[in-house]
């Protein structure tokens, strides 16, 4: 197993570096001005809308008083990946979407940007550590293996490390961070920033082994024998394919694979040309927006049903349209056109009813690149490695909703491999909850609910 430094040199001139931050880091005065607008609501709707229940009004109040490190601590205690979540969360449908200003007279508070300001400022190079991990006697110090180095595992591992446990992440790629590193639209988060966060998590004491695939380099039973607990955070697998004629070959790519190469790979000299993206989810919209911003001649989203049925966020779709993306609904690809050399030059599109092609409606759409964003396969092999771990009908790992424990008492799971593909913030919540459940299981009461005050009203009668 190779131990690789978290920060690898990424290729020069990667395509993603051409797309700057949509929401750059606030300056101190900007952050304070925005923070001071917050009403500091009680039992605030924004907290309830956050899958990790960050105490948003409190962290904002701390920015307003100049207590930026305290602010970051308020965020990270609840969501250890508060930095990347600040940048990648669809805040429009989460905290910001529920800001009381939405229903009143003003622009909602820019919670994501404030959260980025606090976490980025307080964790930048040269700042003293925000947290001191607990030290535990070796008898109490447990050892946990985390399969997959994405947000769910990073979160689980970080909370374990802070509590003085040994957390070892096994990542099959060369780089950890999961989708934060490989899949986030660059105008939200660049790969090097995701890797900085991984390095910060490692600074809490989390161990990372890259190039290690469970089932290939190490067997499940070996993990179960060596570790006190195992956490599965493998995310999702390869992009699904359409299964239509001439799909296989250059020019037709899975959307997440294309996004990963755009973010991490060496730049290609070929211009993007005309791009078609197939699918109606956020991955499809991301790829379409990225292509549009990278200068594609023409970008079209093909979706097989009505616009209302698209699973992508409305605000993302609206941005895509603003950026010139054409959205064609009730349309499906039924074949591809390639020249004698196999080069793609078009896609055959049929009109669709209820998602199914209508015979005789086929027409040709010229294109140079097709991104297929119709979902990703589930990583089912992991269940076979770990006895007691069961999958549901969709191939997702089955867990207890509260403890994130699988059918094997030592094995927990969270993130996309459990929920089928949600946000980074959901994965972080799963990882945190699993870490807490493990510690409860070991008799270490780290999960405390604030005892309700039992005022007896002594002499009130």
């Amino acid at each position, binding site marked *: 197993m190779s131990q690789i430094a978290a920060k690898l040199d990424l290729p020069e001139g990667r395509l993603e570096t051409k797309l700057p931050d949509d929401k750059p880091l606030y*300056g*101190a*005065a900007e952050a304070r001005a925005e923070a*001071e607008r917050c009403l*500091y609501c*009680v039992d605030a709707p924004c907290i309830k809308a956050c899958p990790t229940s960050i105490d948003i009004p*409190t962290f904002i*109040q*701390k920015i307003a*008083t*100049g*207590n930026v*490190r*305290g602010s970051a*601590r*308020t965020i990270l205690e609840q969501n250890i990946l508060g930095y990347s979540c600040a940048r990648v969360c669809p805040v429009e449908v989460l905290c910001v979407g529920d800001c009381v200003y939405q229903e009143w007279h003003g622009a909602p508070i820019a919670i994501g940007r404030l959260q980025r300001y606090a976490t980025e400022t307080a964790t930048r190079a040269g700042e*003293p550590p925000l947290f001191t991990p607990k030290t535990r006697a070796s008898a109490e110090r447990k050892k946990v293996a985390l399969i997959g180095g994405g947000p769910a595992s990073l979160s689980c591992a970080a909370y374990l490390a802070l509590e003085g446990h040994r957390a070892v992440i096994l990542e099959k790629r060369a780089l950890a961070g999961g989708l934060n590193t490989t899949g986030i639209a660059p105008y939200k988060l660049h790969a090097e920033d995701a890797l900085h966060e991984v390095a910060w998590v490692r600074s809490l004491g989390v161990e990372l082994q890259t190039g290690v695939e469970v089932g290939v380099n190490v067997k499940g039973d070996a993990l179960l024998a060596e570790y006190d607990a195992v956490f599965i955070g493998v995310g999702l697998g390869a992009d699904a394919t359409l299964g239509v004629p001439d799909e296989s070959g250059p020019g037709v790519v899975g959307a997440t694979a294309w996004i990963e190469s755009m973010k991490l790979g060496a730049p290609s000299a070929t211009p993007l040309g005309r791009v078609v993206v197939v699918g109606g989810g956020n991955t499809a919209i991301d790829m379409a927006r990225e292509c549009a911003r990278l200068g594609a001649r023409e970008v079209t989203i093909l979706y097989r049903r009505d616009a209302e049925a698209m699973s992508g966020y409305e605000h993302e779709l609206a941005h895509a349209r603003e950026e010139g993306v054409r959205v064609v609904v009730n349309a499906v690809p039924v074949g591809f056109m390639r020249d004698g050399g196999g080069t793609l030059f078009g896609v055959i599109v049929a009109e669709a009813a209820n998602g199914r092609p209508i015979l005789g409606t086929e027409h040709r759409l010229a294109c140079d690149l097709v991104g297929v964003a119709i979902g990703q396969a589930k990583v089912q092999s992991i269940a076979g490695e770990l006895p007691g771990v069961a999958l549901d009908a969709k191939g997702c790992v089955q867990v207890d909703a509260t403890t994130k424990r699988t059918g094997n008492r030592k094995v927990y799971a969270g993130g996309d491999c459990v929920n089928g593909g949600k946000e980074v913030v959901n994965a972080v919540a799963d990882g945190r909850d699993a870490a807490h459940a493990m510690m409860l299981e070991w008799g270490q009461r780290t999960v405390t609910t*604030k005892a309700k*005050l039992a*005022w*007896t*009203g*002594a*002499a*009130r009668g």
Partner: protein
Amino acid sequence: MADLTTDCAGIKSPNPFWLASAPPTNTGEQIMRAFDAGWGGAVWKTLGNPIVNVTSRFGAVDYAGRKVMGLNNIELITDRPLDVNLAEMREVKKRYPKHALVASLMTETREDWRVLIRKVEDAGCDGLELNFGCPHGMCERGMGSSVGQEPKLLEEITRWTKEFAKTPVLVKLTPNIGDILEPGIAAVKGGADGLSLINTVKSLIGVDLDRMVPLPRVGAQSTNGGYCGPAVKPIALHLVAALAREKAIGVPISGIGGISNWRDAAEFIALGSSSVQVCTAVMHHGYRIVGDMIDGLNEFLDARGMKSVRELSGRAVSSFVEWGDLDLGYKLVAGIDAKKCIGCQLCVTACWDGAHQCIFTGPADGVRPPHAHTKGPAVAPKPLPMGLLAGDRVPWIDEPECVGCNLCALVCPVEGCVTMREVETGAHETWNDRVAQGRDKVPGGIHG
């Protein structure tokens, strides 16, 4: 993390943050919730003979979109039976033995003081705070600020209480006086173990112009109240500092007045407070604000290498001097950062109408006003600074005329855009030096 434990005149608490005697400390249930939230101490709502309150009781001043810059109240001391308060006090102390629980008291005769002190000390309070500050209602009955404004009376009553008290006695002072040293010294002479200040500032918060009745309105009338909240902080800071630097005082101070966050608290502590008391910010935002106060003060102390809050206490006192001791040769001039300027030119109008006419715009040399100290035109910089954001709207400073007053820097909305730069003048002396050397005198002044 620094050591935040506090000892104010022998009253110990896990941190310097106490709730001031006010609505947030009206009942035991509230105080226990506050302790759970992190408050280190609480001064119970003033006990005495229960009163009857009016409706309404509060009024506020908002400023620039933010609510409750200042709060005014006409509520009196506790309206709950003494026995109920005492029973709750006993319960709180039993459950929270390490927190500071101070009984604020206000009563009349020597015997009344004796009985009240015995009762609250029996209930387990850690100290007493004599309310000689309330400027509304109670003062009409010869208590509160009517005591705080009469040094002899204040001294006498303080002496009584010291005769009876087993726990430390803090005297809470009113700001509604000419010279804070008079009641401060009287309290110390009477034997006070410590001082707490300020109580509220006598005030009328506003007028309902439709009804032609001042606020807060009680039917068709109103009365003056006590003003508190962020607006009074500068007044309070001055009075705390004035006592802290006075040799004849020498007792610990619990600072009060507009403290809303850790930074405000740090300022009061730096000017000589051992503990600080908070009311209005809690009335506005709840007990939860103490989280940031603890956290923020810890960060501040850590960042400056201070191991305890005691190391901060009084750090800025010695640099608070009389005007006559200030260095007349210290000189600042303003500078504008063209990269940051947004071109609002608020500094220009502030300087021309409100200060000393030394900020100009445009490429031409400036025409100084006829009263200028420097002869000739104000020379424009060449080339004219071009702002990244403001283009040619970036103003420039006529440095020879700049008196270094700060006004432009204060009104500039952009952080770090207008900065004040020190200029060495070579000459350093104070007004008092000049007077001592006979080169100047205080015309008609009290120094003769």
